[in-house]
């Protein structure tokens, strides 16, 4: 007869507000097999957990059910408490009385009865629980960081500095990401290149970091501690071992009119190019789409000019395989283009720019070498208008969230403009100024007070071009909603920060869930911001949500320490929720008849063939066997097995059957 302890939590009054917890404890106490049932205000608190431990020892419990919040939240907590009290942690189950009952129903008779049913269901399940030992799995102490922006760089350096090997892959020809495109950074206005390039060089020279640029993840198999990543090294058509980075080929390349991605389309670049002067690695790549040789088979000028002959015309994409134990996703974010806004001219006005394009104008390595000039006619704009919240906080455009960094970089842009264009007049149309970081508010105040930036609180209805001027029609809600019309020379839109293109496909390759806006979903918004639901895969930076550089770096270091923790011991302890094929005494040996339908169903091909031989070595039967290292415990094989020969620990057929029966009968 099982002796089960049941502990009903009030959760402050989150549960007790609508569920009569005393009655639940009382009725469950009377159930068959329940030796001890109490209710307490905070089960997850220390006193709460000590109740459990004492009860386990005092009553010699062989099963514990905690009726409280979602098991996704505190199952580990209570299982650890049981383990400390000497009870096998897998004999402890949680009934979700908060999210699935008290919070979603009114206070009524039915709500309490439902709570009782839910607890009763788990009591029946615990009766069928078996003690399980966690699985030890070897850990490959090498990390894969995807994305070479500041997030990827910081994470790689931190992991490498703990002495573990890191593989950093970056899709573009050089690492640096969006930060390398910035001129200065708020709130200190220190030059972005100056604080970033040393880190980039450190990455390139760090003994523990293997850097693959112009490379993308092809596929990822395996599981935490034992991932196998296949990486596609896109053909660079330049042999990096012989190339000295002298740049002669870049000068000579005849194709000069390709819009430069690095300059956000303002400047141009050649077919064989290095994205920006401080690029790491500082060696060129041939853009096969626009290169004359690849288009029409002619030219080859760069080959002629190269003294060391490092042009490799027919180099193919190469796929390499790396064994890694953890993955850090640092693929960053993107900004919406001006063509996304009908009211600002569908992107057809040259002098309506995005924040990133303004950064490039302001940057010394930009197309205008730091001077703010109009892309249309190259003149210096006397009047400039910045429009904050372009696309962000706009449900009609499908982007209801705030992109967090635009208020700050808009203030910075205005400040830079005032410093660079004396006598210039800048206006910022804003809804609210969000400057919550350290020294952020002071920075914005400085822009308003010292640099005389004219802040107008109101939205801009339309921008249209007339005689070379951009007519900005807005409203000033602080002056009684008076309509404002400015004839500006340049308009800068602080466009919304969105997920990087291709993030959805990458998430599906890694089985990481993502939110409706294709940002990667963290395991828990408050308590697990750097982890994902997929064990062993961590998040850093704006790929999780738009954020500024300080937060990104903090998060990257957070992800790095998670990886370091994973690598701190040689073996990884894994949940024993894996499938097992039943074994019986001879002559049957197992009810499995070797049809191996489970093998075709298993997404992790964790099912192997096991040959049963008699004493004389003759083959008796071939049955299925589960490789418990590979098995992730999805249970698809269990529901497929016709003879019910395979079962999954933690959700066995008996347990699940008992749960359903207890729900439907009283």
């Amino acid at each position: 007869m099982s002796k089960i302890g049941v502990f009903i939590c009030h959760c402050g009054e989150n549960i007790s507000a609508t569920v009569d917890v005393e009655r639940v404890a009382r009725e469950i106490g009377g159930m068959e097999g329940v030796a001890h049932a109490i209710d307490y205000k905070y089960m997850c608190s220390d006193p709460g957990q000590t109740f459990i431990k004492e009860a386990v020892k005092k009553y010699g419990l062989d099963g514990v059910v905690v009726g409280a919040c979602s098991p996704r939240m505190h199952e580990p907590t209570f299982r650890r408490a049981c383990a400390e009290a000497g009870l096998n942690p897998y004999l402890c189950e949680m009934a979700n009385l908060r999210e699935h009952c008290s919070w979603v129903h009114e206070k009524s008779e039915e709500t309490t009865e439902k709570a009782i049913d839910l607890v009763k269901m788990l009591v029946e399940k615990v009766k069928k629980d078996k003690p399980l030992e966690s699985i030890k799995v070897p850990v490959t102490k090498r990390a894969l960081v995807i994305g070479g922006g500041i997030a990827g760089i910081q994470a790689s350096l931190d992991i490498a500095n703990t002495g573990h090997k890191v593989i950093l892959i970056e899709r573009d020809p050089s690492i640096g990401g969006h930060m390398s495109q910035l001129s200065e950074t708020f709130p200190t206005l220190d030059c972005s290149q100056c604080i970033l390039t040393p880190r980039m060089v450190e990455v390139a020279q760090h003994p523990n970091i293997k850097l693959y640029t112009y490379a993308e993840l092809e596929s990822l198999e395996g599981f935490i501690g034992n991932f196998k990543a296949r990486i596609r090294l896109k053909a660079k058509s330049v042999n990096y071992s012989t190339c000295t980075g002298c740049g002669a080929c870049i000068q000579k390349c005849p194709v000069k009119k390709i819009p430069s991605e690095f300059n956000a389309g303002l400047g141009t670049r050649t077919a064989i190019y290095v994205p920006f002067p401080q690029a790491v690695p500082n060696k060129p790549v041939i853009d096969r789409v626009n290169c004359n040789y690849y288009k029409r088979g002619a030219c080859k000028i760069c080959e002629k000019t190269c003294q060391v002959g490092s042009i490799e015309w027919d180099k193919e994409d190469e796929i390499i395989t790396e064994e890694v134990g953890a993955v850090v996703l640092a693929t960053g974010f993107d900004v919406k283009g001006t063509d996304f806004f009908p009211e600002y001219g569908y992107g057809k006005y040259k002098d309506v720019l995005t924040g990133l394009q303004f950064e490039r104008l302001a940057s010394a390595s930009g197309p205008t070498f730091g001077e703010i000039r109009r892309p249309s006619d190259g003149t210096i704009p006397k009047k400039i208008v910045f429009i904050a919240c372009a696309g962000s906080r706009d449900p009609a455009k499908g982007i209801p969230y705030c992109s967090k960094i635009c208020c700050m970089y808009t203030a910075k842009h205005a400040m830079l403009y005032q410093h660079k264009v004396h006598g210039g007049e800048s206006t910022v149309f804003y809804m609210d100024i969000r400057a919550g970081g350290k020294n952020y508010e002071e920075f914005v105040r400085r822009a308003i007070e010292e640099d005389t930036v004219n802040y107008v609180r109101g939205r801009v209805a339309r921008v249209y071009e007339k005689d070379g001027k951009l007519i900005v029609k807005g409203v000033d809600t602080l002056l009684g909603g008076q309509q404002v019309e400015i004839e500006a020379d340049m308009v800068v839109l602080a466009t919304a920060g969105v997920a990087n293109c291709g993030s959805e496909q990458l998430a599906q390759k890694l089985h990481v869930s993502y939110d409706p806006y294709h940002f990667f979903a963290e395991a828990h918004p408050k308590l697990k911001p750097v982890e994902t639901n997929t064990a062993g895969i961590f998040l850093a930076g704006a790929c999780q949500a738009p954020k500024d550089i300080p937060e990104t770096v903090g998060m990257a270091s957070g992800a790095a320490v998670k990886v370091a923790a994973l690598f701190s011991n040689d073996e990884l302890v894994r949940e024993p929720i894996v499938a097992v094929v039943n074994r019986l005494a001879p002559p049957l040996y197992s009810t499995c008849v070797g049809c191996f339908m489970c093998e075709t169903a298993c997404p992790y091909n964790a099912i192997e063939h096991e040959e049963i031989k008699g004493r004389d070595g003759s083959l008796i039967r071939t049955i299925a066997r589960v490789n418990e290292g590979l098995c992730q415990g999805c249970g698809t094989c269990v529901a497929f097995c016709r003879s019910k020969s395979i079962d999954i620990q933690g959700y066995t057929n008996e347990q699940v059957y008992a749960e359903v029966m207890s729900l439907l009968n009283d």
Partner: protein
Amino acid sequence: MKIGYYPGCSLTGSSREYNESVVALAKALEIELVEIKDWNCCGATAAHVMNEELSLSLPARIMAIAEEQGLTEVVVPCAACYNRLKMTQHELEDDGKRGRVAEILKMPYHGSLKIINVLQMLETYGAENIKARVISPFAHKVACYYGCLLVRPHSILQFDRVEDPQSMDSLIRVIGGNSMDWAFKTECCGAGFSVSRTDLVAKLSGNILKDASDRGAEALIVACPMCQSNLDMRRGAINKTLAQPIDIPVIYITQAIGLALGIGANELGLKRHFVNVEL
């Protein structure tokens, strides 16, 4: 080619020329317009401000009798009527309202009718044979003015682009005209304030006309009787507010195409404009 035709009050009243030009053009393009028998007023923008049931029942009755007369598709030249009919069709997808309106009408309403405006009709049925029939190309630099009701609310009307519509511009190009890029395509002309607050109409329409003439437009092309009357009939009040008067004419798209197809000015009703039309 047979299509249902709903002229609406303004086309039989203050904007008769729009009706004449539509009928003339349709005849020239061998499109047979079957006017809905015993049609009633669509309630225009006034109704839905005062009484929702009235504003839904009036257009619903039009569509119900059209369905009863076997029509599957109806062209509605007036932007306001087109807007009301489309909006009503959308509102009546909600069973509750549909039930209530069915009670009022005491006749079946299916909501399967296809409502199109004059631009859509010309695009789908006329595009090729307009091009083939152009006799004297409409070689003028014009500004196409869409007004507000023709393209909004976009989520329901699903017609052209909201901020920078192109359908009239492309038709003008088909008949050899040069439609220029300007900023007031969908700015408000003052609409219903024409009578109560003529000063507002003068200001708003004035801005529109000023921007068009500053950019050298020889005429304004419209597809809505309300806009036409504000920009044309109120020209006197408008010119009072402007530094120097503007005398560029305001004609309908159907009239412009009619001219290109060689249809006579009288037949197109070009003689009825306040600002006389010499094109």
